[in-house]
């Protein structure tokens, strides 16, 4: 297994995310509206056809988009709505990249877009709306 780059660290690495396997997030200061993530696909993430399960793909995009909201506002929010399109399948052994971007933020909600890629090819895209809790936010 390839090592993760030094400027990446596990994100939201408890409970469900820890159970799935770590998603690594690239360091970025609070207030940054974009996030970059890496994840290594293992056999227990697959469906019966031998490609990544749709539920796993949505889990990765949900966590990555949510972590990008948290990075922007300085506190975690919660997913209100999440939509995912599945463009292509991906097989075990792959290192997946996820790029997420907050496109709009108000006091109480954030709109986020995410792309899941392998070797630069987009495999899934997602858009979601997060609720922000202004009393928790630090930025």
């Amino acid at each position, binding site marked *: 297994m390839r090592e993760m780059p030094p400027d990446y660290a596990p994100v939201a690495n408890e409970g469900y995310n820890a159970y799935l396997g770590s998603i690594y997030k690239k360091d970025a200061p609070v207030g940054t509206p974009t996030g970059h993530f890496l994840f290594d696909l293992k056999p227990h993430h697959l469906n019966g056809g031998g490609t990544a399960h749709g539920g796993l793909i949505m889990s990765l995009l949900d966590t990555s988009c949510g972590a990008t909201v948290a990075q922007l506002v300085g506190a975690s929010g919660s997913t209100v709505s999440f*939509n995912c*399109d599945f*463009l292509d399948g991906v097989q075990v052994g792959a290192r997946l990249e996820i790029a997420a971007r907050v*496109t*709009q933020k108000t006091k109480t909600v954030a*709109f986020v877009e995410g792309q899941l890629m392998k070797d630069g090819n987009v495999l899934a*895209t997602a*858009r979601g*709306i997060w609720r922000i809790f202004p009393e928790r936010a630090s930025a």
Partner: protein
Amino acid sequence: MSDDDLESALKNARPPEGYKPSRQRGPFTSHNGPLFYKYEGDKLWQGFRALERHTNSHGILHGGMLMAFADGVLASAVYLETKARAVTLRMNSDFVAMARPGEWIEGTAEVTRAGREVAFVEGRIMAGDRLIFTATGVFKLFRRDKRG
């Protein structure tokens, strides 16, 4: 809308430079718009002038108008990419910000993947430099060379 009314509406819309009227649209779109288009390289932009009749009771641009416009923006991008007749299977909409009458509303879309049977497309709609709406769509393709 009669031809005279359409011509007058096209004139009153005061499109920004580069936009030309879309005259070949279906009755629904001509009546709602009128719409304009321009190319930036290969990229097609479509636009319309937001009017009172496009608003809701809050005086802001109606969500239904935005979705109807967006559906056409997505469909045009799919056609330009695939040259296939296509119908919308789904469109998902995010209402990112408000727009008001008087503003020029314009949108463009990109096909993220086109297979034999379906195409995925993403679009965005702006009011000036403000992003007001995003949509993703899945279209079913009817390719002429496909059997069965």
